[in-house]
């Protein structure tokens, strides 16, 4: 156990406790989700707080991605999905169909496991969001692209090849490009689904640093299968198992002194 505590301190974990006053951005109550007859989320109660990094961990198939995709209603893309319960974003129930998903999604960015840039130039990738939301002014777009790439710590690497294909970038650069693409519409929340699991160590580090650098401006929910990563970068951690939230608490608490035996077993690699 000592190992993990040691590592926490390396990444200045102490701040966390001060954050407990933060107000929730998302509040989930009794959320159930079925894919056809598969009950993928079972009566979830969970909050995600403003300007915190919330890590979601759990074994494969436990519903992590599903939960994340519910937060921006991307999960509705799957046919035959049924949702019940309540899920509010800044006090507004987003499961209510009257809320336009486009508006929600422009406020809630998403980054996926595999980098998924569009087969367009780097510039066009970042400008995509602003453009579809109606910003046409060229100078304005240039400004947004530059700012977003700077925030994503990618500007210096790509500023000379903005108009070349995004596919020419390395995997890690592509993933940061995807984050830049999110940042370009000035989101309030960014959802990340195992954003580093396809990346090499160096790129992983860069993405983690990037998360660290934006977390004062944006709320972040991140799914990861790497427990050390969760421990390093998150303020709070939620442990999912079989569609249930087994435990959700401050990260230091989860990793050092989990309340649930299952959490303990999982954290310590006894399964999964």
């Amino acid at each position, binding site marked *: 156990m000592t190992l993990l505590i040691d590592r926490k301190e390396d990444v200045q974990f102490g701040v966390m406790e001060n954050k407990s006053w933060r107000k929730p951005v998302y509040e989930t109550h009794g959320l159930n989700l079925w894919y056809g007859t598969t009950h993928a989320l079972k009566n979830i109660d969970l909050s995600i707080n403003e300007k915190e990094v919330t890590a979601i961990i759990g074994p494969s198939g436990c519903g992590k991605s599903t939960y994340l995709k519910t937060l921006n209603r991307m999960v509705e893309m799957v046919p035959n999905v049924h949702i019940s319960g309540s899920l509010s974003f800044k006090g507004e129930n987003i499961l209510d169909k009257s809320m336009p998903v486009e*508006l929600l999604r*422009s*406020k809630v960015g998403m980054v996926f496991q595999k980098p998924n840039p569009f087969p367009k130039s780097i510039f066009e990738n970042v400008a995509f969001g*602003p453009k579809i*939301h*109606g*910003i046409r*002014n060229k*100078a*304005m777009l*240039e*400004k*947004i692209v*530059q700012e977003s790439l700077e925030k994503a710590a990618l500007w210096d690497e790509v500023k000379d090849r903005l108009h070349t294909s995004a596919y020419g970038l390395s995997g890690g650069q592509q993933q940061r490009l995807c984050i830049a693409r999110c940042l*370009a*519409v*000035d989101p309030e929340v960014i959802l990340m689904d195992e954003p580093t699991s396809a990346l090499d160590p160096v790129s992983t580090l860069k993405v983690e640093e990037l998360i660290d650098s934006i977390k004062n401006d944006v709320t972040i929910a991140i799914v990861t299968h790497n427990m050390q990563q969760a421990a390093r970068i998150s303020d709070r951690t939620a442990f999912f198992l079989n569609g249930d939230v087994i435990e959700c608490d401050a990260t230091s608490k989860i990793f050092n002194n989990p309340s649930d035996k299952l959490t303990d077993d999982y954290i310590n690699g006894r399964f999964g």
Partner: protein
Amino acid sequence: MHINHDITENSEKSIRELIEQKRQQRNFKEMFEKSIPTFLFLIASISILTTIGIIYTLLSETIEFFKRVPMTDFFTGTVLKPLSQTPEFGVLPLIMGTLTSSVIAMLVAAPIGLMSAIYLSQYASDKVRKVFKPLLELLAGIPTIVYGFFAFTFVTPLLRQLIPGLEATNILSPGIVMGVMIIPMIASLSEDAMSSVPNSMREGALGLGATKLEVTRKVVIPAALSGIIASFVLGISRAIGETMIVTIASGSTKNFTFDITQSMQTMTAYIVEVTGGDAATGSTIYYSLYAVAMTLFVFTLLMNLLARRISRKFREEY
């Protein structure tokens, strides 16, 4: 960076505010967006209109035909003499011609197509496949009129040297050529079926020391069986509907026979004969055209439904 006053003005606002502002002006776009599904649905319904058109056209004239010729005469008659002084309208000779030529075609296409599929999907190296597949596709792309010409000017004379007693127009030659035409279709559909057998299954068998032949016979073919059968059924359907090859190479004798060395007429060739020939609108022969076309349509429809059923079952397996 050069900044014009437009942005300076705009950049007072955050991106988010700009986006919100743009949202207010989106009424027209939203209406446009909302009308798209309806518009596309209308386009998609053209295919349904086509079906309705086909069925309506065929059915209305077929009904007229059956007012003049009893249905039983049509479906059980073995004599087709539409223009004779004492016309007879038995469809059986045409059905016989159609089935005979299709069976011959399948006897050629099924084994060769399947073996080609096995070779391409299980044995051929990437390079070989890259050369062979487009060549086979080429075979599929050759217009049927060209096959007809080939059957008539080359295959028939060749066969006549091998088979004494083979008539100058016969059902054998177009049957064989139709088979060749269908090979690529069966090869490619069966290959699809075999390649959609998960690789993991193939690896499982290979990992146990099975040879490619054993993997193919014991794992791949059983697993892909319904897909393969579906490809055969589609092949038959294609043969039944094929027109130009038989029109050119099998003559127009309305023979009710099993003798493949003789000239026979298929349903499709009959339609060509009647439309290209002396069919006066309003005559019984003219209506017989629709009755035969309807029969042909029903035949191929049943084949397609069958193939679809079989292959759906197949797809459910994985």
